[in-house]
């Protein structure tokens, strides 16, 4: 991070506060507004978000490539320590500010159409506003404690939004799972905070950054904080909640579970990159690598359109984390930026498919799972606009040249290339992993688009499907547009553009062959995908995929594993199983402690009572009503006394 100098800039401060607080205001308004006026909520919320977005843009332009902005106020004091609330805006956070408010605005707009008629619409928009606020909080906060606070709050809003359709049991289960797994990560984050506090007595990022020498606690602290990132950014092994989180409304998936919240982990890693030691970074990149590969492979085997996207998100996040681990936070942030748009676009487009199909189903009283790609096909005629967006964003995701994804992926691959060094080591696997992932990405993206839009119509053939309304199409259009290369770089083959230089002011690594190699690689993947498509049509695609996954599984995750299963299965059976297992274990343990409580502790209390009664029955057993025995016992006691006293 750059040397930071705080200065007073009232306008920046003002607009920052507007950008930050308007979503909160939206939360309150949506929450308070009465049932009768609930129709006004989408408008009000969207309006507020526009203003917020506008302020963000203003802030972005005042900050971008300028001095960072910092300000803080006292929060509370304990002993000699001051806890502060503060804002620190540098290039990274300014960029994120745009991403968050921008996508949030688009999602608000989209939701106005998507969620129309939902009974919980006020709650929905309230939580969207609250989420945006919390997310902005993470981005702007100048100290770790504050980041942690907002970190948890986004978890909370994510919980509320995943469980928005609370009558659906799957939704509430998924929400619980999401929050719990996040909490596990957050606990790690908390431990990290404790370590930082114990050794530095400060949470302020600027102060933490000011000590230059690498300290021993940093590895532990950074790894602990990375645990938080694992939870939020769905890194291995805490990645299972995200596919389930797709039970939430699709715009929510777009905003939270694709574009912003899950990327918050990556953002945090970039923001506190200075804490990470080399050892810690090694762990980070390994985790990232595993995650990206697993996500990509799992995505191949999915049938649910949203789950494919979810696994894809996991995979992409893994890539970003790898970039961080490779010491290139700027590459990670770059990919984060591009990914946010194209993935949000994909989700929203998927949402519009679902929306349209649902409406059509509603007309025809037909019921099948509209999210299952096996039920879909040939929709390109009925939903041409959506198809277009899918193509645009999907290409970006696949990393085809002339799309943003290509540039950002290049940046990451380049970073990996430099990071791996010239000597062969384990690092090379990571580098290879990057390529494999990008290869697989193409496969599943292509498969998804193909099976949804190409071929013949299947169950949808009798439905009269129409494109979604304008409020939904507009955001799609914007996002599709934002997937094109010129948004981030004029030169479609060179990522080091205005954005990248803003993220990283120093000298850029360049490996001039990389765009070409990666372009060719992607094309190869594309061809492969196309070839495999035929096989898939012959319904052996899935089986092939199984074999493929098995190979990767034996190569990377568990060489000794004889259980050849899908990564999907691996995911479910092992990790979910593990988490379930621990959950069951916990429940069993809980039951055990409960039993222990009742039997042993209560029992011992009752036992004490029993002993008391026992003593009582002993002492009263001399009280049988026979006077001569009384006398005998008394005399006996006297004799015992006397003998004891004298001897």
């Amino acid at each position, binding site marked *: 991070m750059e040397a930071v100098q705080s200065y007073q800039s009232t306008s920046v401060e003002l607009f920052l506060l507007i950008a930050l607080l308007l979503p909160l205001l939206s939360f309150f308004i949506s929450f308070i507004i009465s049932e009768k006026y609930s129709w006004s909520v989408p408008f009000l919320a969207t309006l507020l978000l526009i203003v917020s977005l506008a302020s963000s843009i203003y802030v972005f332009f005042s900050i971008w490539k300028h001095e960072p902005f910092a300000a803080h106020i006292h929060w509370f004091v304990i002993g000699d320590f001051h806890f502060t609330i503060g804002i620190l805006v540098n290039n990274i956070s300014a960029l994120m500010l745009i991403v968050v408010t921008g996508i949030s605005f688009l999602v608000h707009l989209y939701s106005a159409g998507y969620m129309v008629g939902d009974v919980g619409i006020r709650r929905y928009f309230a939580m969207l506003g609250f989420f945006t606020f919390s997310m902005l909080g993470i981005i702007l906060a100048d100290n770790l404690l504050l980041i942690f606070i907002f970190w948890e709050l986004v978890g909370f809003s994510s919980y509320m939004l995943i469980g928005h359709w609370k009558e659906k049991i799957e939704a509430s289960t998924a929400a619980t799972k999401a929050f719990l797994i996040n909490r596990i990560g957050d606990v790690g984050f908390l431990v990290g905070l404790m370590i930082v506090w114990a050794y530095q007595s400060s949470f302020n990022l600027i102060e933490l950054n000011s000590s230059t020498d690498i300290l021993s606690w940093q590895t532990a602290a950074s790894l602990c904080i990375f645990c938080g990132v694992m939870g939020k950014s769905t890194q291995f092994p805490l990645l299972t909640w995200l596919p389930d989180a797709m039970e939430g409304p699709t715009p929510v998936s777009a905003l939270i579970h694709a574009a912003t919240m899950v990327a918050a982990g990556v953002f945090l890693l970039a923001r506190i990159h200075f804490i990470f030691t080399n050892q810690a970074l090694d762990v980070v990149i390994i985790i990232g690598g595993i995650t990206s590969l697993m996500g990509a492979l799992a995505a191949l085997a999915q049938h649910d359109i949203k789950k494919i996207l979810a696994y894809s998100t996991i995979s992409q996040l893994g890539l970003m984390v790898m970039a961080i681990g490779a010491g290139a936070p700027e590459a990670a942030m770059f990919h984060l930026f591009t990914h946010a748009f194209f993935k949000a676009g994909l989700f929203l487009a998927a949402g519009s498919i679902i929306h349209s199909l649902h409406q059509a189903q509603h007309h025809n009283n037909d019921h099948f799972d509209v999210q299952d790609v096996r039920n879909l096909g040939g929709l390109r005629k009925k939903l041409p606009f959506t198809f277009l967006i899918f193509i645009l964003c999907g290409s970006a995701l696949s990393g085809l040249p002339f799309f943003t994804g290509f540039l950002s992926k290049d940046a990451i691959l380049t970073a990996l290339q430099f990071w791996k060094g010239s000597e062969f080591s384990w690092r090379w696997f990571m580098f290879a992993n990057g390529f494999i992932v990008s290869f697989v990405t193409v496969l599943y993206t292509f498969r998804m688009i193909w099976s949804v839009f190409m071929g013949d119509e299947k169950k949808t053939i009798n439905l009269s499907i129409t494109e979604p309304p304008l409020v939904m199409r507009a955001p799609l259009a914007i996002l599709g547009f934002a997937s094109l290369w010129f948004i981030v770089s004029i030169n479609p083959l060179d990522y080091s553009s205005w954005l990248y230089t803003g993220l990283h002011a120093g000298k850029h690594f360049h490996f001039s062959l990389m765009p070409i190699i990666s372009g060719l690689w992607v094309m190869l993947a594309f061809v492969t995908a196309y070839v495999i498509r035929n096989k898939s049509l012959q319904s052996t695609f899935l089986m092939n995929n199984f074999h493929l996954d098995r190979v990767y599984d034996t190569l990377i995750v568990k060489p000794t594993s004889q259980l050849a299963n899908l990564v999907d299965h691996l995911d479910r059976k092992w990790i979910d199983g593990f988490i379930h297992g621990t959950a069951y274990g916990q429940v069993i343990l809980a039951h055990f402690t409960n039993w222990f409580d009742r039997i042993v502790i209560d029992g011992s209390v009752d036992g004490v009572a029993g002993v008391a009664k026992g003593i009582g029955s002993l002492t009263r057993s001399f009280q049988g009503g026979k006077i*001569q025995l009384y006398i005998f016992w008394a005399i006996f006691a006297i*004799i015992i006394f006397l003998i004891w006293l*004298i001897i």
Partner: protein
Amino acid sequence: MNLLNFIFYFLESVAALSAVSMIFIRNVFYGALLLITCLIALAGLYVLAFAEFIAVTQILIYAGGILVVIIFGIMLTSKISGKPLVVEHANLFSGTLAGLSFLGLLIYFLSAQKFNVFSTAKPLPEASLHTFGIELMSDFILPFEIAGILLLIALIGAAVISSSIKSKKV
């Protein structure tokens, strides 16, 4: 002295034997008679211990008073039920254990004990009764009076207790 010694040991063994045999007899009436024997022997011992007044009182009150009452009691309590006067033993083991251990304990320590003689002055037999009277009315006036009240209370109490029997019978 020889004769006196003989009398002393004779009386002592009479007292001891009659007492011990009280344990073994099974007839209450005999028990009462044995007690009388024992008490009379004790009275004799008291004489030998220069306590003539106590000896006399012992014979008068115990032999003449208490035991008559007790015998009456025996008669009364056996008459109604018509049962023989046989007395069973209960708690034989525990009772014997308690008594014998007490006995052992006491004998052991009594024999080990050296008692101090506090004054060597011999009592004057002829003045004894006189002194007794005077002391009773001076030093021991309070116990004397209290003993009177005690007897009164016992009398009244016994009367009330037994009168209630009558009243119930009627």
